């Protein structure tokens, strides 16, 4: 009798323990770490309303900051948004948990072509879903370029990479992104070489070509170009699609007579993906899956695209995307252009070191 009472007590205690541990796991909290200004104004509020999960939403401004947090471990975040090539390395370091696709009922909405591109970073698409994607082309000041060189090749990398052409825009201002891997891929693509080469010979060709156009480059910077283009202080800038479109809108708003356009050059350009992934030590993986599924709902992600002016990777969402965004070839390029885009894959460490040195030589012009 007494023994059985003891057993019951123990069983009850174990049961209670189990119950609390389960409910602790289902705590209604989600910690999201995303790029600054990279979500619609009401997305988080709507998600909280729909699921009752409280979201702590923080922002970062560079992949390096995110990577430092992830590598230190125990970051506490449930959803992070690295760019493709950074994620590729992080997956190799075992930072992310594999997605449980049974919990993602909207997974089928994703664009198959994009998923294929992403699988070069993340084999089998096991660890992340594509959030937004864009291209690395160039933005230019329509009037000034036309004035300096009537009939300039504004649909081609010739405008930036052909030494004879770019020389004409020196005084007007030509700028590069301070992003060696993307510059490398674009220039190699322009030279008709493999954009994702790890060969020394290709790197030498890249450096040689860059040094030819170096005298005409005003600066290397990854964010200053937005305001400088909009203010009319520079003419041609290699830039990320979303940034260049922001520059275009700012120029319109300022009404100073500056008109900016963005080109995905006909030779092809880098396509990049920002990915949503769940760290392996995330405290709330269940909620994270719910969030991913929510983001893949067509209307939700379409609202985000309408707000941030980046293309999403959701085929079902395209019908909800505003015409202004959807019909802009800078954001949603035609299938023909899309076929020419190439992802910027992570290089091997040795090549990265050589590239960094080469990039320093290029930037200092020696």
């Amino acid at each position, binding site marked *: 009798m007494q023994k059985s009472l003891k057993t019951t007590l123990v069983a009850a205690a174990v049961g209670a323990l189990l119950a609390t541990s389960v409910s602790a796991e289902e705590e209604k909290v989600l*910690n999201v*770490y995303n*790029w*600054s*200004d990279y979500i619609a104004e009401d997305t988080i509020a709507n998600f909280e309303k729909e699921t009752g999960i409280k979201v*702590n*939403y*923080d*922002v*970062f*401004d*560079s992949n390096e*900051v995110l990577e*430092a947090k992830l590598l*230190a*471990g*125990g*970051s*506490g*975040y449930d959803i992070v948004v690295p760019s493709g090539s950074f994620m590729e390395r992080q997956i190799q370091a075992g930072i992310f948990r594999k997605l449980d696709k049974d919990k993602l009922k909207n997974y089928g909405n994703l664009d198959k072509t994009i998923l294929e591109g992403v699988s070069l970073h993340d084999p089998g698409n096991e660890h992340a879903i594509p959030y937004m994607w864009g291209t690395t082309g160039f933005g230019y000041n329509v009037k000034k370029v036309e004035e300096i060189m009537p009939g300039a090749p504004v649909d081609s990398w010739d405008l930036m990479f052909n030494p004879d052409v770019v020389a004409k825009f020196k005084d007007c201002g030509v700028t590069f992104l301070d992003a060696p891997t993307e510059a490398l891929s674009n220039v190699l693509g322009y030279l008709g070489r493999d954009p994702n080469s790890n060969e020394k010979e290709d790197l030498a060709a890249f450096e040689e070509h860059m040094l030819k156009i170096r005298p005409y480059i005003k600066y290397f910077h990854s*964010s200053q170009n*937005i*305001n400088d283009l*909009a*203010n009319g202080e520079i003419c041609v800038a290699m830039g990320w699609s979303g*940034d260049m479109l*922001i520059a275009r809108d*700012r120029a319109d*708003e*300022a*009404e*100073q007579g500056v008109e900016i356009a963005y080109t995905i050059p006909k030779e092809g350009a880098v396509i990049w993906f920002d990915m949503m992934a769940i760290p392996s030590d995330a*405290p709330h993986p269940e909620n994270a899956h719910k969030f991913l599924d929510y983001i893949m709902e067509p209307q939700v992600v379409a609202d985000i695209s309408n707000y941030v002016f980046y293309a999403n990777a959701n085929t079902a969402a395209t019908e909800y995307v505003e015409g202004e965004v959807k019909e802009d070839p800078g954001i949603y390029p035609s299938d023909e252009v899309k076929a020419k885009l190439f992802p910027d894959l992570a290089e091997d460490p040795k090549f990265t070191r050589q590239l960094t040195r080469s990039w320093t030589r290029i930037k200092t012009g020696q």
Partner: protein
Amino acid sequence: MNKNRSMFLISGLAFGFAFLYIPILSLIIFSFNESKLVTVWAGFSTKWYGELLRNEQILDAAWLSIRIAVINACFAVALGTLAGFALARLGRFRGRTLLTGMVTAPLVMPEVITGLSLLLLFVAMQDLIGWPAGRGVTTITIAHITFSMAYVAIIIQSRLSSVDESVEEAALDLGARPAKVFFLITLPIIAPALISGWLLSFTMSLDDLVIASFVSGPGSSTLPMVVFSKVRLGVSPEINALATIIVLLVAVGITIAGITLNRQEKRRQRDMQMAVAANE
């Protein structure tokens, strides 16, 4: 000759002030700019103040930063005063050189190193003893206290070494216990240093970006972190509006502190004169 020199001095002064304050002035002026571009003037408007009040992300971050700064300043003053007192009053004791070195180290340590080492410490502590659980407001506050306290200690130490020790000795002679002497004699004398130490710690905590971004966690983005992450897309005039408000608050705070300190100083001098007169 004399006039020439004063012309030189005045123009030097004017140039110096212009160098310091014209950037702040232009920031304030552009906070009333109609355009979204920070550098192009497009007419007067107060709309960015309205936008700012609706922007919860910035307001939450500002409020969080202020809370951290206040807690940090209080702890830093308490701990820094103890350290400063030990350095100035306890004479030679074993390990004094070590203590001096350790107190001043955070002053010269690059922020990146402080930030990274604290981050590693917090991660290790969480693994070993489970506290602090995750990173957030607590860890940022601890990190800020670590370096603020060093500044306070230096301020207090230099203030104490300029104070005549005989006043304290007199109180001891008259039968006051050391604790009573500390609270009734020493503290009031170094009060101005306490206030400036508090304000300095407050400012440095409000200002810190590097260390905070190392040791922050979910739901603990401070104001500098939010502002800095926004810079990627160009600074919006909301930031100018916020900066204007902060400049205004700081100016008011400094003025009040200045007036109070000034009054105290005058009263102290009057008291001392009266004491001298009474003795004669």
